[in-house]
C-alpha cells in the first residue's frame, strides 16, 4: 500500500501548488477507490493462484512427468492427465481447423465486401449477441446437430461425426468460439486505415487485390491475437463438452484403437478431469490432483495468451 500512497501524495502536492492549495476531496476519494478496486481484483487472482499452486505442487514433485504421461486411474497415486491432454490438444486442433478459417473469412466478407444495408446490420448485431450466449446453449446445439443429426446416418448407423466423439466435441467448441473469432477479426480489419485502401484503388487495384495484398497482411497480427485468445477460451470450456459426451468419470481405456482410433472412441479433456476429480471422496483427488490439473490448465492458457501477445508485438504496425 505504501508506494501508491506516496505516489498519490506527491501528485496531490503538485496539484495543490498549481491550484493555489485548494484541496479537492472528491478527487482523492475517487483515486483511492480506484486503487482499492485494483488491489481487490489483483488480490483474488493472487490468492487463487497461490492456493491452487501450493495444493498442487506436491503432485509435480512426487510424480514429475509421470503425471503427464499416466492415464486416468481410480488410484490417486497412479492417476494422470495423458488422456486429457490428448483430448484438449485434439479439440484445439479441430477448433483451429474449423473456426479460424470460417471466422476469418466471415469477417473479411462483413468488413470488405458486404453492402451497408439493414440486413447486414442485423447480421452484425446477431453475431455480437451470439458471442454472449452461455456455453451450455452451444452444448445443446452440439448435442442436437453434431451428436444426434450428423452422428447417425439414415439407417441408424454411425454418421460422419461418429456420435459422441472428439470430432463432435471439437465442432461444438468451434461453433462456440466462431462469433468471437468473427468479432476480433472484424475489429482487426477495421483498424487498417481507409487511406491505404483508397490509395490502392486509386492506382487501379481490384477489391480482391486490395484485400489480399494490403488489408489481410496488415490485419493479420490483430486477427492472430484474437483467434489465439478464443482458442484458450475453447480449451477451458466444460459445460458444452459434458453435453456432447466427453467422458466424465474416473476411469476409461480405449483398448487397442491406436492413436488415430482415439478420435472415434471415448475421449476426455482437462476441464472434465478437473470437474470429476473435484467430486471424489479422497483428498488426494479433490485437493491435490485437482489443483495440479488446474495448474496445467492455467499454464496452457497462459502460454496461449503469451503467444498472442508476442505475435502482436512482433508483427504489429503502428499507423
Amino acid at each position, binding site marked *: 500500500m505504501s508506494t501508491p500512497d506516496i505516489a498519490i501524495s506527491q501528485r496531490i502536492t503538485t496539484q495543490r501548488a498549481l491550484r493555489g492549495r485548494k484541496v479537492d476531496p472528491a478527487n482523492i476519494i475517487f483515486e483511492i477507490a480506484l486503487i482499492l478496486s485494483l488491489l481487490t481484483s489483483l488480490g483474488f487472482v493472487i490468492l487463487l493462484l497461490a492456493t491452487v499452486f501450493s495444493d498442487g505442487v506436491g503432485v509435480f514433485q512426487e510424480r514429475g512427468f509421470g503425471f503427464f504421461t499416466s492415464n486416468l486411474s*481410480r488410484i490417486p497415486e497412479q492417476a494422470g492427465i495423458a488422456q486429457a491432454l490428448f483430448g484438449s490438444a485434439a479439440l484445439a486442433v479441430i477448433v483451429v481447423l474449423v473456426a479460424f478459417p470460417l471466422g476469418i473469412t466471415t469477417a473479411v466478407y462483413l468488413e470488405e465486401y458486404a453492402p451497408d444495408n439493414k440486413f447486414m446490420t442485423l447480421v452484425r448485431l446477431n453475431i455480437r449477441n451470439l458471442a454472449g450466449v452461455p456455453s451450455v446453449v452451444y452444448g445443446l446445439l452440439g448435442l442436437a446437430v453434431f451428436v444426434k443429426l450428423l452422428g447417425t446416418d439414415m439407417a441408424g448407423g454411425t454418421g460422419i461425426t461418429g456420435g459422441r466423439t472428439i*470430432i463432435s466435441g471439437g465442432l461444438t467448441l468451434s461453433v462456440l468460439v466462431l462469433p468471437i473469432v468473427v468479432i476480433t477479426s472484424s475489429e482487426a480489419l477495421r483498424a487498417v486505415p481507409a487511406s491505404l485502401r483508397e490509395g490502392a484503388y486509386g492506382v487501379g487495384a481490384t477489391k480482391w487485390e486490395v484485400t489480399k495484398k494490403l488489408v489481410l*497482411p496488415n490485419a493479420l497480427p490483430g486477427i492472430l491475437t484474437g483467434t489465439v485468445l478464443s482458442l484458450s477460451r475453447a480449451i477451458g470450456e466444460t459445460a458444452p463438452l459434458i453435453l456432447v459426451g466427453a*467422458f466424465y468419470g474416473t476411469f*476409461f481405456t480405449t483398448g*487397442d484403437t491406436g492413436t488415430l482410433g482415439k478420435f*472415434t*472412441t471415448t475421449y476426455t479433456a482437462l476441464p472434465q478431469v478437473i470437474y470429476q476429480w473435484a467430486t471424489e*471422496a479422497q483428498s488426494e483427488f479433490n485437493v491435490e490432483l485437482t489443483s495440479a490439473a488446474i495448474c496445467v490448465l492455467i499454464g496452457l492458457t497462459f502460454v496461449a495468451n503469451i503467444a498472442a501477445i508476442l505475435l502482436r508485438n512482433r508483427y504489429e504496425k503502428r499507423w
Partner: protein
Amino acid sequence: MLASPKKLRRFVAGVTIGIVSVGALAVLPAGAQSTSGVNISGSSTVEPITSLVAEQYAGKNPKVSVRVDGPGTGDGFKLLCEDSIDIADASREIKSEEAAACQGKGITYTELPVGIDGLTIIANKASKMKCVDSEQIYGLFGPESDGTFATAQALATELGSTNTPLPTSGSIKKFTPGPESGTYDSFIELGYKDEIETRLKEGKVTTVVDEEGEEVAKEPVVSDGQFPNDNDIARRVTATKNGIGFLGYAFYSENKENVKVISVLNSDTGTCVAPNAATIGNGTYVLSRTLYIYPNNAKVAANADVKGFLNFYITKKSLTATVKDAGYVPLPAATITTIISTWKALAG
C-alpha cells in the same frame, strides 16, 4: 517492430499446412471400426468399486476398451434400458417403472450384488446428538420437518419415539443429496419408510401425484441444500453450527476427523449402533444397503469383452479385496459364493 508481410505470410502458411496435415490424419480414421469394449454407467456410489475392478482388468487385458462413469443410479437404469450401455451400476434395486422400460425394449438383465454401503448420518462437531431412532430421523429429515413442528423431537414424540430425546438446539440446518441420487431414495427407504407411509395415510403430508398416478410426498426429504457431491455435504456440515446431513459411508470415512457420526437405534435389539465395517456388514447397522451391478444379458452372450470383464469382477478377490479398497464393506462369504454361481449359470 515493423511487419514484414512476406515473412508473416510464410509463417502463417507454414502453421496452416502443419495444422491441416495433422487434422487430415485426425479425420481419416473417422470411419474406422471401433472395438466392442465394455461400457458401464450408473451409480456414483458403486462407480469406485467398478472403476477399480475395471482398472485391474484393463491392466491385464490392454486390448479391451473399458469406460466407467457415475451420473447416478436412475440415469444408469435409463441407459441400460435404452440399450446404450452393457452394465448398470446401482445403489438400490431396480424400480418397477424402470424394469417396465427395459421390458418394453426387450432387454433382460441380471441383478448381481457386489458390496454393502452404510448410509451415515453426520452432524457438526459441536452437536450433542448421539443416537437416533427412525421416528427421530423422520423428525429431522422427513417431509414434516419443514417447520410445521417446533422441534424435530416434538414430531418424533407424536410418532411415538421412545429413544432418548434429541438435545435441544437452535434451528437445524440440513444438507442432503438430491432426488436423482440413489442415496436419497435409500435413505427414505431405510430411514423412515414406515413413518412416511403412516403419515401419508393420515393425510399429514403435502403430496403430489407422480408419473404413475400415485400420491407421494411432495418433498420426502426436507433439505436446506441439496448437493450431488457427498464431499460438499461433509464440508457444509463441518462449517455450519447445528448442521446435519447424510452421505455414503466411504465419504464419511474420508471426512471422519471433521464431523460427528450419529448412531442409529436398531429396533430389534434396542441398542444404538454406530456405522463401521462390522456393523454394516452384518446388518446390525440398519441404514445398510446392498450395492449392485446389472449386466444386460444379451451383451453378456454377444460381447466377449463384457463376459471377460464380469468373469474378472464376480470373483472372491474382486468382491472382497477390491470392494474394501473402494471404501465399502464386502458381502458375507456365503452370499459371495451364491452370486458367483448365479453368474456362472448366466455366463454358461
